[in-house]
């Protein structure tokens, strides 16, 4: 009767209690056991106190989102119990420190098992420090669900630098072992949810921001200038932590204006350069992005979205910058907008962005969001294939090309495809001028009608070229579905899960996922949506921005929408339920 390899763990507590890092370690142990894992965190805009949690869903198949039910809750404080009681499924367990002040009947009455273990005591006794209570709690959980102890042990060792001899590692292991044994012995037999390692797997555990940063690194990015802003900061922090290995210059600046402008300077000089920020910082970059556009400087900007407007919900998720990014800055210019929805797509966006930027000499945006920035997923290692990463710098003149040049070099030369050969400043034959004013081919400012039109046309032509490189939206599920679910970016996961659930119900449903959204892939959109029977647009925002873009570009209206703007991500179950109930929000 046991349920094998299908459950959710949740660890919660005040900010600063470490639910996050402990949970992350536990997820790693699960991934190493060959299981698929999806973990996401929820935290408040404060450093200590409040209520944060980390949630880990485990499964035997690749999973893309969390589910509502919890099988094992690991509260570090009382609030975590009371806050999440409603989410516990029958037969689930709450692993509590023995003295936790809650009446067990509040749990048992709902069919939840109160698992009281003297966590602090064990931590102090075996490890000599009560902060090892988190470790104890996780170890009880591992024991409870039959996860072999070796996986817990290994993660502890790793955390402490893999030095077997380390006293602190040994203390933690001792705590874990004692707790594990008690969990397994006292409560295991009675607990129906179990994990069974899958041998011979090669998983890795990564979140969206790491994947984007890793993708950029794989593209040979050597520059990131930025200003800290949640949830984008970790892109930089990951690169900073690896700067020696990657040879990347990391520059924290006095503000986002400087951050983007320094990147523009570096990019103009021939370095693959990027910046990463969130909405408020992006707002400050708007003027400079126009500069990149008119000077045809390759620029990669990561915008990790959060609840808006303004400071809004600074540690919550939202997908509300799409139209902003497509339309930002005065005047008109070509740009590319990538909207990855999985860690694999984040990785790809990370390197593809640089190819778009350099090939077309334009600003390229990677739009991600709070949820995706932090959510971790276990995937097969070969999904991050370094061999498949292409580097295309576009039409970049080499020293030899410049040596051979017989005519004056023209930075903004008019060409058939709109792309002017680029050179790095420094070569005697490549002396170049560029400017934010409209310009002649040689960069001199121009006000005359004719050249203005030619340069404008030239720049806009690049959009047509870039459109050929854009990956059309992904259609998953049967071509001739009765229902088409449409989404972009981070909703990929929950929609994917919802599709599986609804398909299991017998519904013929497919999923149109936009991961590269601008230049807008109109042809494929018309092909799929033009003939769709019933369409639902699903977005983490108020106005249904993708639906608006679709209508703007194709005329196709999607009146049925499921929109969520409370700062929390969807789950597959939520969506499936809403679709079933026909609870469709029309705006």
């Amino acid at each position, binding site marked *: 009767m046991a349920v094998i390899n299908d459950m959710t763990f949740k660890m919660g507590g005040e900010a600063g209690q470490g639910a996050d890092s402990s949970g992350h370690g536990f997820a790693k142990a699960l991934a190493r056991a060959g299981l698929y894992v999806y973990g996401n965190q929820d935290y408040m805009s404060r450093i200590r106190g409040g209520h944060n949690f980390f949630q880990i869903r485990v499964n035997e198949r690749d999973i893309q989102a969390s589910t509502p039910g919890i099988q094992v809750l690991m509260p570090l404080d009382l609030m975590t119990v009371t806050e999440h009681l409603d989410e516990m499924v029958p037969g689930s367990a709450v692993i509590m420190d023995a003295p936790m002040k809650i009446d067990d009947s509040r749990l048992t009455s709902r069919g939840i098992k109160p698992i009281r273990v003297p966590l602090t005591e064990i931590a102090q006794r075996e490890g000599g420090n009560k902060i090892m209570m988190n470790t104890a709690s996780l170890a009880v959980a591992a024991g409870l669900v039959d996860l072999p102890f070796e996986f817990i042990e290994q993660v502890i060792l790793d955390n402490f630098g893999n030095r077997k001899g380390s006293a602190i590692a040994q203390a933690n292991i001792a705590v874990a072992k004692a707790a594990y044994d008690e969990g397994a012995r006292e409560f295991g037999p009675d607990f129906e949810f179990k994990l069974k390692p899958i041998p011979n797997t090669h998983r890795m555990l990564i979140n969206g921001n790491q994947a984007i940063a890793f993708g950029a690194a794989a593209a*040979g990015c050597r520059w990131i200038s930025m200003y800290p802003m949640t949830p984008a900061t970790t892109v930089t922090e990951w690169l900073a932590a690896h700067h020696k290995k990657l040879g990347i210059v990391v520059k924290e600046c006095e503000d986002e204006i400087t951050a983007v402008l320094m990147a523009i300077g570096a990019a103009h000089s021939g370095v693959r350069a990027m910046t990463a920020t969130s909405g408020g910082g992006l707002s400050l970059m708007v003027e400079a992005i126009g500069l990149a556009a008119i000077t045809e400087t390759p620029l990669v900007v990561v915008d990790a979205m959060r609840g808006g407007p303004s400071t809004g919900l600074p540690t919550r998720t939202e997908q509300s910058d799409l139209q902003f990014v497509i339309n930002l800055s005065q005047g008109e210019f070509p740009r590319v907008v990538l909207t990855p929805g999985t860690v694999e797509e984040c990785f790809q966006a990370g390197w593809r962005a640089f190819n778009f930027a350099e090939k077309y000499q334009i600003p390229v945006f990677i739009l991600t969001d709070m949820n995706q920035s932090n959510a971790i997923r276990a995937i097969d290692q070969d999904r991050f294939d370094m061999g498949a990463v292409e580097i295309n710098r576009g039409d970049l003149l080499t020293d030899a090309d410049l040596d051979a040049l017989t005519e004056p070099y023209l930075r903004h030369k008019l060409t058939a495809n709109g792309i002017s050969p680029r050179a790095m400043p420094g070569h005697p034959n490549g002396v170049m001028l560029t400017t934010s004013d409209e310009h002649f081919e040689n960069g001199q400012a121009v006000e005359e009608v004719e050249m203005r039109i030619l340069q404008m046309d030239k720049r806009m032509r690049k959009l047509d070229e870039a459109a050929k490189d854009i990956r059309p939206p992904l259609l998953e599920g049967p071509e001739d579905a009765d229902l088409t679910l449409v989404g972009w970016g981070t909703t990929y996961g929950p929609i994917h899960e919802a599709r599986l659930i609804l398909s299991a119900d017998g519904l013929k449903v497919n999923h149109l996922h936009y991961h590269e959204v601008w230049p807008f892939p109109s042809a494929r959109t018309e092909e799929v949506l033009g003939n769709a029977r019933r369409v639902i647009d699903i977005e983490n925002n108020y106005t249904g921005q993708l639906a608006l873009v679709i209508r703007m570009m194709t005329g196709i209206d999607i009146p049925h929408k499921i929109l969520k703007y409370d700062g929390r991500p969807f789950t597959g179950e939520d969506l499936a339920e809403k679709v079933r109930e026909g609870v469709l929000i029309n705006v």
Partner: protein
Amino acid sequence: MSDMKLFNIDEKPTWCPGCGDFAILAALKLALSGLDLYPHNTMLVSGIGCGSKLPYYMKANAFDTLHGRALPVATGIKLANHDLNVVVISGDGDGYGIGGNHFMHVMRRNPDLTHIVENNQVYGLTKGQYSPTSDKGYISTTSPDGSIEIMVNPMAVALAGGATFVGRGFAGDPKHLTQLIMKGIRHKGYALIDVLQPCVTYNKINTYEWYKQRAYKLDDEEGYDATDYESAWRKAREWDERIPIGVIYQEDRLTYEAQVEELADGPLNRTSPHRDREVLDSIKLEFV
């Protein structure tokens, strides 16, 4: 010494006849050639304004950016290719007004940039509004009764902010200015060169005459020691009656780029993109 003519170009400046910017352009070209620099290893980065048009009128690599935004672009360029001699050109509104925060923070970093501020104490290109360096009481279309803010003293701010070279020139003395720019370029680190630049069209107060009556050369001050911070501080605060020109302050401090280890092997742009399959695969294992 390179041939100054190399910097010439067939573009007639659009400045008003008599504008102080002409002298600055000439001085810059002379200084570059005097230092044996060339158009291809020089990069001019300017903002937007009358003065910021300077790069249009000479031959050299140039990036005319946005109003107030030359410094960060220049820093990016310098760090990406520290072999380039990077000269930043801005106006007083550009450099001390809208671009003030970049000014404050570039000084802390000390990249090897030479920053020429064409300080005409007015917004020229937008037709004569008062600027952050306009004297208090300056009458303009946006201050019809006279401005009620005290002016920025860029020399004092530069000293307080950590600039390693602080100088002032005068467009009415192009020879002296040329020398000063040469010193600024030779200086390893951030060099601020504020230039008193008469705007003959809009600024009817701070004219050639006005400056001439006040400007005096620090070179002529017996025993003036620009490496002495305290003396520099006193000179930096002089204005109105007497205005010192020349090198007010100079200090040795490591440049920003000298401290970035990624640049040790040569300019970044020469080795970008950087990709080592083995390194990447090893990093991948961190996620396991």
